[in-house]
């Protein structure tokens, strides 16, 4: 900081965030736009008629609880990192991954439940096809979230996550919370608009 006074008029440093975190937020914006487009398409399609109404799979409710829990454990992992509780970071990340995988399994079960109720992906009723697209695309993003969790877990094993080095776990947490929020949005959307 001392050398700055050499200049006669020192311009102010510019406002800035951590670039990688910022880029993650922009990535999230692009995912939001993708799902905003698809859910708007759903509303437009619905107003056209030829719409099949059916019961949402009961698994969805259970899954919503599971993913909310996983957000909680993710947050506990982050708090542990802030307090340098290295063991707990690892455990909580593992629990989050397991909950994430359980959620995916639950989504798969929901698909078979849909098929049992004669709601198919390939059909003349877009309402059914859309549910598969929503859950499938969300699941795909969730897989990327789990990969991110595993990478974060790997760094926690190497002792690279602690109170002085929080960027990675913060980014992982942001992404994971977002994916949970995205599911909540899709679930509520379907509840209201089906």
């Amino acid at each position, binding site marked *: 900081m001392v050398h700055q*006074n050499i200049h006669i008029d020192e311009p102010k440093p510019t406002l800035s965030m951590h*670039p990688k975190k910022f880029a993650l937020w922009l990535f999230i914006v692009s995912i939001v736009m993708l799902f905003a*487009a698809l859910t708007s*398409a759903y509303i437009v*399609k619905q107003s056209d008629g030829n719409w099949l109404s059916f019961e949402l799979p009961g698994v969805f409710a259970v899954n919503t609880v599971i993913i909310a829990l996983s957000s909680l454990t993710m947050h506990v992992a982050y708090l542990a990192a802030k307090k340098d509780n290295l063991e707990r970071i690892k455990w909580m990340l593992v629990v989050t991954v397991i909950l994430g995988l359980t959620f995916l399994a639950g989504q798969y079960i929901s698909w078979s439940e849909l098929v049992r109720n004669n709601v198919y992906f390939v059909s*003349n009723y877009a309402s059914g096809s859309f549910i598969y*697209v929503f859950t499938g695309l969300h699941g795909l993003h969730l897989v990327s979230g789990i990969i991110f969790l595993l990478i974060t877990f790997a760094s926690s094993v190497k002792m690279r996550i602690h109170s002085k080095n929080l960027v990675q776990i913060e980014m992982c947490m942001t992404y994971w919370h977002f994916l949970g929020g995205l599911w909540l949005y899709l679930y509520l959307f379907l509840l209201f608009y089906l």
Partner: protein
Amino acid sequence: MASTAVNEQLDDHIEDHAHEHHDNFITKYIFSTDHKTIAKQYLITGIFWAIIGGGMSLVFRLQLGFPEAQLEWLRPFLGKWITTSGKLDPEFYLALVTMHGTIMVFFVLTAGLSGTFSNYLIPLQIGARDMASGFMNMLSYWFFFVSSVVMFISLFIETGPASGGWVIYPPLSALPQAMSGSGLGMTLWLVSMALFIVSTLLGGINYITTIINLRTKGMSFAKLPLTIWAFFLTAVIGLLSFPVLLGAALLLIFDRSFGTSFYLSDIYIAGEALPNMGGSPILFQHLFWFLGHPEVYIVLLPALGITSEIIATNSRKPIFGYKAMIISMLGITVLSFVVWAHHMFVSGMNPFLGSIFMLLTLIIAVPSAVKVFNYLTTLWKGNIVFTPAMLFSIGLVSFFISGGLTGLFVGNSAIDIQLHDTYFIVAHFHLVMGSAAFFGMLAGIYHWFPKMFGRMMDSKLGYIHFWISFVGIYMVFFPMHYIGIAGFPRRYYSFTNFDAFSTFVDLNSFVSVAAILTFGAQFIFLFNFFYSIFRGKKAPANPWRSNTLEWTTPRNPGHGNWPGEIPSVHRWPYDYSKPGAKEDYIPQHIPLSETPESNLQHETRFVKEEKVSAKT
């Protein structure tokens, strides 16, 4: 404070690299993470696509201008697409117009323009060592490259490339039975575009992050060059609109390959009903144009930004209405998302909705007119230096005006009933978006060539290139207005089948000859470009006596751009011909305290405050 820490960390990081850096050919020129090399890769790929896309337009112009001509001599290039009677195959004609549109809009004027100049100028003009993530930037280029390869392959397959128009409306694009181009060609188109969207998003995220977070000291938003503002807003538009195209394409892929009915309903082919029911083709149009319209501004805004910079520099005057320019670009950005349905006035959409979209569309004329006014008032009474870049920028303003005026007609939902999908539309968007953006790109190349390659382009060849292109483009697109008003639809294979249009045969031949001339003139540019890379005159440090930071780098800037510390910024980038100043330009990194003779009253106060703060 946190921000300085980040910046310092990055600086340290880059300096560390500089010591251990041993570039071999592959890391330096092929898998490079240096924004300058990536920009050049985008430029060269863009030029390659421009030649292909432009060449395609000549082939269909030959068909339109000279419907009786023997095209047997094209057989070595087009093979079986020339029929046994020596004519262009009508299906391939449709493929040509489709691919011309796709290539020009996405590969040349999006990737070639934004990819080149955003990559090249953002770090150099805001004072950053490189992009926020060099690796992501490299990925962005290579996704574009793979997307290009897929699209290029699709040109050579048996059933021909995608042929349903660049807007790929279903059901035409969704059913392989509909036309041969909707088979494998369409599949490859979708794959290529999906990769392209990934590339654009990676690039755009990087541009926005870099502009917001990596600006040098003093480079506040109010001191950013207008180029950077334009690139920034372009990237924002891309980030918000391209995912929507991905969504639209995804549903189209499901309809094509999995049998869903998002877009398909009540279709009979050869007397037989398809099983698909309940889909809505208009849904696709909504989703497509939600990208498609902002895409117009993705193409145009960078060109307008480049023009602002070049016109101010070469008029030796501050840009007129700097803030008005920024506000109008912001206005255009916001409005670009709420006008998409003006492409669909005749799609059977609710006419009340149409009148709302008409109102919003016509509002865009306001910020556009503000920008034009500001360009003209910047030129007004300036000490204009007619470099080739300046000529191309003025040419852009001309196209923007003459193409923009017809926008008032076609944006009107009642007049659009007559003009929709006629050559009037073709003339309108080729002038206002196609040619304007293309001129912006050329202006940018002429202006920043000395920085890119350390050598000068020949300006005499530049002048010849400009005048033939400028006159040629008007000769091509101006007559099309008449053909369009007469009602001739675009994408039709032949005029001569209809008596009503036989009076336009001469005019069409004229347009085709002009197109050939204009295309030919681009080879002057190509020669100039490639010759000057190796043999051009060595460029001085600041050949255009310009204010922005890129001209403070060495003649051939290395990795990290500035050998020493990054210069700080003390003033806006448009201090040209400031009264009292020694020179007619004061670069952005010169402190106010060094120019007491030209400081304005409020600036003198800044200097005093700065001195006080320096003492304490």
